[in-house]
């Protein structure tokens, strides 16, 4: 008789595996606006069901925690129930044998602190805190709250101009977002429940590939209000504010330090990711909205006193971005050919392409700027390009797709190596980066594992050029001297972008958040424009002529997400031309047809459901 057996491929564990994948997607698609206590309950039930049943605290204690939490949610609890939950959870945390018990209890305890007010509201008022209520995931998670289901439906109708118009209702940079948006809108897409998130950025790109933004007329501007608004900084935040303010009828002056508008979209993001002629399409459209004047190479803070601008204009929007590359304190940092990645990208943006022929380039950092610098170095004919990062690849803040593309283009990632010093030749040129090997350690307060020095000898990475991409600083000093409060250079502004104690001054974008994404800057520009309008005494509502088509029946057939392909690495790495291939008509239509129209089906028709 046989004594031992292979694992049964038809076993329940195998089948559960598939179910668990579905479960994962369900979690991924948790709608925004959900009461945190219900999420806490889902987590608790999931954890409770993982018990092996051995130990009392976990097997019998977690179900009792669930009973108590349900009491709170059912409006059948007093404040004593919270104390009871806390003491029971603390006991489970202290006495459970394995992580299934103690980690679950820890999560409940954390939740009791983080969501204390929510608990209180449920117990005392038998309802959620204000502002709770399910919302359309993509619209809500887009910082600018663009009507995504609406423009996807317009794609289905082949009304691309309508789609551009609808996007511009909330975001005047459709081309920029089509090319480089990090698409937070896709995060909790309800389509995840069926197969995968809609490729929203891909669809948006299809729109602007069919009709250029500057070929779609912007709405007619309101009649002039006679008010003058200064926008300092012509990046995504500044241009967005200018666009909406212009449409409202205010006279806008953009003070741009560079020769052209765009900010980091032009001078940070390389052409191969976002071709500059495409950026110009957005800019031309924006500048056609009302009375917008641009003063190029106008350096507010150095050549033009901030005070003067403040005095001359009725309101001022500070959107100066984070333009200065952070410095590293390393021995030998003064060596020749050691440069900040931001400066290198800025030079390329200004048309001065460095020639790295035959050179070994090392980029320090793990963010998107590091990837941009490394991939640009490849295109500047460098012999070899390496990225040195002190954490692990999975800790890099760059988008996974960016890292993947960099690797495909032949860039080597050297991880867990912290820069220690820069070796110089007698002539003062950089000859190597000396690095200290690291090991990954415990998580820090921000929730990322921190590296610590490994018990290994420092290593030498020979190189001719070093590009430093370890973050960006905001050139905030002149504005701080003017009286704007800042913390570590980041301007303090409310969620309405208004600057405290400086009436009429608003701030947004990278300079008020620290380096973030284009879409967050665009959102700040939109919020600032509306609040400046209010500040100036108006309540303008902007007109949009695009109409959202009626929804069709949901397509319930699981269908793969249509990814955007790229030109092969062996070709694209020799030029700065755009790396992405356009969608075909069929791809775009299939992708658009996957949209579940949450603006119509489900919470979208509830009062507040569409609200951001």
């Amino acid at each position: 008789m046989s004594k031992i057996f292979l694992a049964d491929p038809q076993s329940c564990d195998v089948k559960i595996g598939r179910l668990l994948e579905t479960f994962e997607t369900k979690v991924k698609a948790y709608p925004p606006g959900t009461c945190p206590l219900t999420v806490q309950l889902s987590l608790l039930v999931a954890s409770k069901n993982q018990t092996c049943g051995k130990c009392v605290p976990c097997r019998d204690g977690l179900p009792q925690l669930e009973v108590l939490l349900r009491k709170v949610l059912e409006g059948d609890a007093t404040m004593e129930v919270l104390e009871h939950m806390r003491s029971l959870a603390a006991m489970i945390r202290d006495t459970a044998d394995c992580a299934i018990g103690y980690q679950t209890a820890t999560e409940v305890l954390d939740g009791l602190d983080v969501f204390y007010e929510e608990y209180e509201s449920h117990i005392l008022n038998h309802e959620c805190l204000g502002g709770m209520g399910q919302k359309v995931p993509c619209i809500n998670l887009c910082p600018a709250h663009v009507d995504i289901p609406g423009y996807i439906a317009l794609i289905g109708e082949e009304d691309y101009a309508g789609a551009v118009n609808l996007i511009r209702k909330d975001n005047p940079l459709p081309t920029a977002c089509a090319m480089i948006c990090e698409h937070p809108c896709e995060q909790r897409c309800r389509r995840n429940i069926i197969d995968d998130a809609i490729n929203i950025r891909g669809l948006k790109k299809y729109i602007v590939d069919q009709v250029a933004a500057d070929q779609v007329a912007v709405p007619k501007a309101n009649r002039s209000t006679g008010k003058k608004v200064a926008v300092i900084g012509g990046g995504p935040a500044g241009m967005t504010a200018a666009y909406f303010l212009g449409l409202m009828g205010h006279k806008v002056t953009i003070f741009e330090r560079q020769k052209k508008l765009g900010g980091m979209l032009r001078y940070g993001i390389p052409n191969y990711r976002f071709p500059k002629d495409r950026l110009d399409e957005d800019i031309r459209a924006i500048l056609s909205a009302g009375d917008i004047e641009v003063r190029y190479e106008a350096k507010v803070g150095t050549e033009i006193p901030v005070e003067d601008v403040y005095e001359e204009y009725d309101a001022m929007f500070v959107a100066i971005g984070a333009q200065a590359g952070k410095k590293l304190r390393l021995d030998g940092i003064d060596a020749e050919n050691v440069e900040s990645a931001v400066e290198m990208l800025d030079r390329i943006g200004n048309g001065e392409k460095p020639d790295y022929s035959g050179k070994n380039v090392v980029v320090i950092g793990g963010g998107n700027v590091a990837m941009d610098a490394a991939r640009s170095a490849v295109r500047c004919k460098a012999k070899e390009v390496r990225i040195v990062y002190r954490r692990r690849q999975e800790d890099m803040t760059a988008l996974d797709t960016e890292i993947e593309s960099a690797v495909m283009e032949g860039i080597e990632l050297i991880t867990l190596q912290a820069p220690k010093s820069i070796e110089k030749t007698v002539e003062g040129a950089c000859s190597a980066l000396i690095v200290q090997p690291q090991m990954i350690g415990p998580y820090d307060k921000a929730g990322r594992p921190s590296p610590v020095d490994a018990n290994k000898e420092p290593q030498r990475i020979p190189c001719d050029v070093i590009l430093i991409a370890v973050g960006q600083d905001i050139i905030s000093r002149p504005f701080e001297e003017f009286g704007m409060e800042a913390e570590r250079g980041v301007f303090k502004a409310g969620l309405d972008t208004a600057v405290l104690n400086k009436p009429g001054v608003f701030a947004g974008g990278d300079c008020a958040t620290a380096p973030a994404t284009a879409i967050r800057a665009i959102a700040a520009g939109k919020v600032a424009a509306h609040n400046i309008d209010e500040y100036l005494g108006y309540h303008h509502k902007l007109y949009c002529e695009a109409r959202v088509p009626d929804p069709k029946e949901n397509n319930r057939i699981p269908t793969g997400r249509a990814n955007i392909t790229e030109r092969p690495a062996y070709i694209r790495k020799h030029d700065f031309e755009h790396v992405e291939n356009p969608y075909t008509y069929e791809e775009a239509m299939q992708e658009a047809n996957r949209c579940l129209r949450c603006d119509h089906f489900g919470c979208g028709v509830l009062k507040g459901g569409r609200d951001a």
Partner: protein
Amino acid sequence: MICLNIDGIAVEAGEDMTILEAAQSVNIRIPTLCYMKEVNEIGSCRMCVVEVEGMNKLPTACNTLVKEGMHVQTKSERVIEARKTILNLLLSNHHRGCFSCPQNGECELQELCYEYGVEESRYVGTRKKIERPVKDSHPFLCYHPELCIHCQRCVNTCAKVTGRKAITLGKTGMFNIIEAPFGADWDTTLCESCGNCAQACPTGAITEKRKKNYRGWETKRVRTTCPHCATGCQMDLIVKDNKIVDVEGADGPSNHGLLCVKGRSASFDFIDQEDRIRYPLIKNKDTGEFERATWDEALDLVASKFTELRENYGGEALAGFACSRSTNEDVYMLQKMVRTVFESNNTDNCARV
């Protein structure tokens, strides 16, 4: 040797000792419920949790080894509170019909609840609706799931000590259940009916059915040796009103508290049978009936008859066969008598029943 401190007392302990053993060595009592040394050290009940300086969690004393310099508190407020909560949780799923429970007065859960002042659970049990049938088709043993605290003592006793693996662990959703082999199909299971599971059970979940005939506090214990085979298992006869009502395994050198089905369930109930011979009888040759005699009369008769046989036919004509239920000492005495008095080597013992 490891030096540690328990409740302010300096303790020297062996390197392989647990906190529980180290505490016991200085007479500090730490409550346990699921723990059975070397049989069930899985730490499932968590009653033996203690506070150890420098540890975030409250480790279980039963399966945490001592460490040099350890500072242990066995009765801190945090520990007491945790134990009370555990008892509350256990009690929430435990049927509290103690009056009708045969284990009343001997139940370890009952004793700990009494000690920690837990009279009513503050919880409503979450597994109460899972109705498992009572299993009582077995002639000696029965299982009451509503009394089970899922400590696994029975499972591990059956698997590791008895070696039968007749009691297994089942599942119903997220709950564990004990698959006790006492249902209608009991005679086709691996169960040998030894009852070591019932002795291991800290509550009244698994009991010998005869336990219903007495209350623990009405009885006295008499330590004796099992009369069945030559293993020499030590056992306590449970005596009520001068009658043996039950048997429990005692910690003897050869049995360590265990008994087999014969020792536990087949070694005492004949004592008070009506047809038991309680005094010597000699057959009246005239009537053919047995008649009561004195021990002297009876022994004299037997001695004279054996002597006669030996004189007439020699010792080889005689043999002595000892009963396997006799103790080793009695068997030894018998063979000695056969060799020296009978003058014969014809002696043996069946040594098994």
